[in-house]
């Protein structure tokens, strides 16, 4: 597919939505997004130029949520005051551009984690970002899940809590690993022994809010990206714990939340915006998330080994599993 084809396809689709003649120019690949193609471009209508981003899911690539559901939860989040790039169009039949497509506003700023952290070091805005991130998550968790106009995926199993559902999924994943990993098994044991009470209320959860899926500028947090894995109903502490895992600190280990800051401003931001923070569930989901990323890396390597994704990056993922095993073991250190 050439860039010319893409420009024409995008112009056609935007023209249908806006009811105007649209010219598309300045197409370029963005660095964000591993499985999806993110293209920056400019749409011009009657001399007015708007910078936009097209997210294209290659045909055949698995969608966790439909593109319509992803756009719907983003629209709801935007109305609820969550910083998210405004979506102009979404369509699952993006034949002219090679697969399902979403077009949203371009938001300027850094997304690549190390560059984000350089910017934070330069501007000293780590605590601000942690606070904003907490407040953003509180606003997301305050949304009414039934208000999403296109249903999101669920992991429903009647009578179970989100933690029980997550543990069941992880147990299956560890059972199915092609080589036994006893450190992960020990992690499952810990999760089982420390299973928390259900959340007072299940909420929409984004599931992948973290340094790397945020747009950050000198003024702090500008947008939350990558809503493809959103769940209709889960434990809000899952979302709080995920950005606090060591792997998203990118060597800034002393700053628990994304390498930005410690947890104090983050929790203050969450509670200040009406969120109900729970320490025991937060700690449980940190262990769960660490284990989940370990089996996620193993899955990436299986996709390489069976030929689905012939990428050296996916090949390397399997050799990262011990990093997660270490982080996991440190989180489940036995009491003396």
């Amino acid at each position, binding site marked *: 597919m050439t860039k010319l084809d893409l420009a024409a396809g995008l112009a056609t689709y935007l023209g249908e939505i806006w009811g105007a003649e649209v010219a598309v120019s300045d197409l370029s690949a963005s660095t964000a997004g591993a499985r999806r193609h993110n293209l920056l471009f400019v749409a011009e209508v009657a001399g007015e130029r708007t910078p936009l981003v097209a997210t294209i899911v290659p045909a055949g690539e698995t969608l966790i949520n439909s593109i319509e559901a992803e756009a719907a939860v983003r629209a709801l989040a935007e109305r609820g005051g969550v910083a998210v790039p405004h979506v102009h169009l979404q369509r699952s039949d993006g034949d002219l551009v090679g697969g399902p497509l979403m077009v949203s506003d371009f938001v300027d700023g850094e997304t690549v984690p190390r560059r984000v952290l350089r910017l934070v070091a330069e501007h000293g805005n780590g605590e601000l970002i942690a606070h904003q991130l907490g407040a953003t998550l509180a606003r997301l968790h305050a949304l009414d899940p039934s208000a999403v106009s296109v249903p999101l995926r669920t992991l429903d199993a009647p009578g179970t809590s989100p933690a029980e559902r997550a543990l069941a999924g992880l147990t299956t994943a560890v059972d199915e690993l092609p080589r*036994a*990993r*006893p450190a992960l098994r020990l992690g499952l044991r810990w999760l089982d022994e420390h299973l928390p009470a259900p959340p007072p209320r299940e909420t929409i959860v984004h599931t992948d809010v973290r340094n790397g899926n945020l747009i950050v500028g000198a003024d702090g947090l500008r947008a939350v990206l990558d809503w493809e894995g959103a769940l209709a109903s889960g434990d809000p502490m899952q979302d709080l714990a995920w950005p606090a895992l060591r792997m998203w600190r990118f060597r800034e*280990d002393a700053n628990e939340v994304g390498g930005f800051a410690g947890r104090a401003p983050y929790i203050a931001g969450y509670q200040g915006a009406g969120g109900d923070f729970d320490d025991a569930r937060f700690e449980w989901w940190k262990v769960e998330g660490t284990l989940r990323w370990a089996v996620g890396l193993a899955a990436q390597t299986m996709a390489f080994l069976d030929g689905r994704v012939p990428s050296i990056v996916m090949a390397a993922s399997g050799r990262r599993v011990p*990093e997660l095993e*270490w982080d996991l*073991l440190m989180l489940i250190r*036995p009491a003396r």
Partner: protein
Amino acid sequence: MQFLPEAPELLGAIAALLDEQVLPVVPGDVQHQVRVATHLASLLEREARLGAESARSERELIAVLLGVDAEDPAAALDERLRAGADDEFAARAWEALVEITRADLAICKPGHDSWEGA
């Protein structure tokens, strides 16, 4: 029997070539993959040097823990933990797995074990 160099020296040479001469001249969209390839060549170099000792030590730690010298020690420990372990055994397994994971990290990510929690 092959002549010299052996695997660690060859892998070290490949890593150095990728890092010092290939990386600076490849297009931006390939740079990340070349970095990963460099990392993997270095990892394999360390594995060629340390792998046998790491496997021997893992086998020994698990044999002490389980009281048997299993053919596949990791699978045997996994099975033992899956069958149900009391806190005392789990604590001893944790100690052994910390040692085993340290040895894994010495190959795949030296320095990752400098962080010990929080």
